[in-house]
Structure formats: C-alpha cells, structure tokens
C-alpha cells in the first residue's frame, strides 16, 4: 500500500458512499430519438381542425391550453379566446417550458398558418413533452372556416351543410364575420396554467 493506492481507495469509497445515497433519476430533458420523432410527425392525430378547436372553446373544455406562437403585437390585435402568447423565439425559455411540460392539458399551438406552430410542436416534442397539438391551417383557416364561413367554398352536400351550420353557429359565438372585431371575449388575459410536472423526484439522501 503506497500513498497512491490509499488515495485511490479513499476516493472510491467516498464517491461510492455519495452515490449510494442518490437514486437514478430520469433526466427531464431527455430528447426523443429522430425515428420516434418521425413517427410522431407523420401522424395526423397531432392536428386539430379549427372546428375542433372551436368546439373545445365553446364547451369551455378545462383541459385546453391554447398557445399563440406569433409575436405579441399580433397577439394583442387578435387571438383566440383564452389563448396565451408565447412567441416562437421564446418557446424554449425555462418559464415557458413550465407551461408545456405537463400532461394534464392538451396544448394546442397556433400561428397565422400552420408552419410556425409546427415548429413549436417539433421543438417541444423533441423534448419529450406529451399532449401537444397544432391547429391545422392556423388563424387564416380559423377566419375562413369559423369567422367568415362561406356557402360557396366547397361542393355543397348534406355534410357540408351541417358543417356550414356549425360554422355559422360558431361564427356567431366568436362574434364573427369580421376579423377586426375586437370583442371583449376575444381578448382575454392569458390564464395561468397550474404547473404540474410529471417527473420522478430524487428520493431521500443528502440533497
């Protein structure tokens, strides 16, 4: 036994004792693998149509969390009822991720079109967050389908008629016909989502 051996022994035992009091934790930012991401991307179930989103809003679905990923300037002009604003460039901020990393709410991203919301979706999905969706077609589609439903936009049949009636109803609900309508209902302050995180906490030990 020389000095080096004793040093090695002491190091081993100290580090070993330390690690014995910790437990294996699942690291929160574990990214999903590219092939898993690919499987998720091509699934159409990650989209909600504007009609579906409208239904959620009208029925005051408590599990809905709408996220407007456009710039605050646009958000202040017009957004969906109850939506909160997290601009795309800020989406990876710690504070914002707290809203997204949970599995109680269904988080629906939307922007003017689909693509910005899609980017947001991919970013958080790579972080392994569940229950995130995109509103297909974005606000443009929303305006077209919900706020200004047109009889002539599609080939007319019974199903379309039902859809038209539905859209018309929805349009009235959302104070439709005009996008300039800055109804009090449209502009609501972002609700605060209770922060619930599903992750294994480190149990016991010398924290």
């Amino acid at each position, binding site marked *: 036994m020389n000095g080096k051996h004793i040093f090695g*022994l002491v190091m*081993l*035992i100290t*580090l*070993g*004792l330390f*690690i*014995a*009091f*910790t*437990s*294996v*934790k*699942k*690291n*929160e*930012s*574990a*990214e999903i*693998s*590219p092939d898993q991401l690919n499987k998720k991307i091509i699934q159409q179930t990650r989209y909600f149509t504007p009609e579906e989103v409208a239904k959620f809003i009208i029925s005051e679905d408590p599990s809905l969390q709408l996220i407007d990923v456009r710039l605050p300037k646009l958000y202040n002009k017009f957004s969906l009822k109850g939506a909160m604003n997290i601009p795309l460039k800020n989406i990876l901020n710690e504070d914002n991720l707290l809203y997204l990393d949970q599995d109680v709410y269904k988080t629906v991203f939307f922007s003017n079109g689909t693509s910005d919301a899609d980017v947001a979706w991919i970013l958080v999905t790579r972080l392994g967050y569940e229950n995130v969706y995109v509103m297909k077609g974005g606000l443009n589609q929303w305006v077209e389908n919900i706020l200004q439903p047109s009889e002539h936009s599609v080939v007319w049949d019974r199903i379309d008629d039902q859809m038209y009636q539905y859209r018309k109803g929805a349009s009235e609900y959302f104070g439709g016909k005009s996008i300039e309508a800055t109804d009090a209902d449209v502009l609501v302050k972002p609700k605060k989502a209770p922060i619930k995180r599903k992750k294994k906490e480190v149990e016991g030990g010398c924290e």
Partner: protein
Amino acid sequence: MAPIFEQASEWNLMAALFIGIAFGWVLERAGFSTSRKLAGVFYGYDFVVIKVFFTAAITAALGLLFLNYFGVFDFENVWMPTTYVTPTIVGGVIMGLGFVMGGFCPGTSVCAAATGKLDALAFIGGIVLGVVLYTFTYEPLWETLRGKGKLLIEGSDTPGKVKIGELIGVTEGVAVLIFIAFGIFVFWFVEKIKKTYNIKDVEY
C-alpha cells in the same frame, strides 16, 4: 444531453473511431497486447487483467451515475443488454475455454495484432471462423438456446433489461457501492497472493 451524437450520423462514426483509438491505446499501455500477460490471470502469475477490468468497470459505473446525478446523462435510457441467463452462461463458458486456449479476447486480439503479434492474427482468423460456423449452424443448434432464460422482474417496463440493483432490490447507487466493496476485496486479495507467493511483475 447525452448521448451527444445521433446514432447513425457520420459524427457518431467519427466518435467511434476516436473512442476506439483511446481504447486501443489504453489496452496496449496496460499490457493487454500480450497473451502471456493476459493468460497469467488464470495461472496466478499476473493479475493485470483483473485489476484493469474491475477498476474500469467500477470507474465507468460510478462515473455514469455521477453524470446522471448532474443531469447530463440519462442512466435509465442507455444501451442495456437484455439478460438471457442460459445463453449468457453457456456462451461465457465457451468463451472462458477459448480464453485459456487462445490467450486473448476479441478486443485485445485486435490491439495485439496491431503491435505485430501473429498469434493474435491467428486468433482473429479463429473468431471469423467461429462466427461463420455459428451462423451456419444457427437454426439447428443455437436459435432456441439463444432465447432461453430471459430474466424478468415484475413491474419493470423494459422486460429483460435488468440492472443489478433491481435484481437485489436496492438503488443502483447502493449496488455500485457493493460493487466497489467487492472490487476492493478482489484487489486486496490479488495483492495478497502476489505478496505471499512473491510474484514479480513480468515484462514480455
């Protein structure tokens, strides 16, 4: 967040090359490129294999748990062999026999061949033959045996991928501590043998 590189990327293959270089370098430096030193472990005249082996395994296990503790590595989500008890033991026994006969294991034989050992080259030829033999007799001889004895632990969501801690019912940290204690005992034991029988380090 580890792993840093995506699995099939060119970067990962580059990393593999550099990690391999480091691996080969350490093996050569430790004296693993000579079969007489390696085989010594079975005859009690050289314990370098046991010392290097256990120190490496302990260092890596401890290090990975520390990386996990600091949040840069996901210990739960790592490459992990599925435990099939029967083929692992049968394969291990066959490999042990191969070890005393050939004096190498596949990794060290590559390293030894790199330093010009022709017996290591012969050993590599043997491995190739062995793998070919295995593949041609896979269906009649090995296929059923290979899937036998899968170790299952209740309540695990990754069937068969069992860690020591899960098996004996402690956290992985405690399991590593036990492993360290065992390693220290082994080191003490081999040093004791060396002293008792007055074995000198040999150079080949």
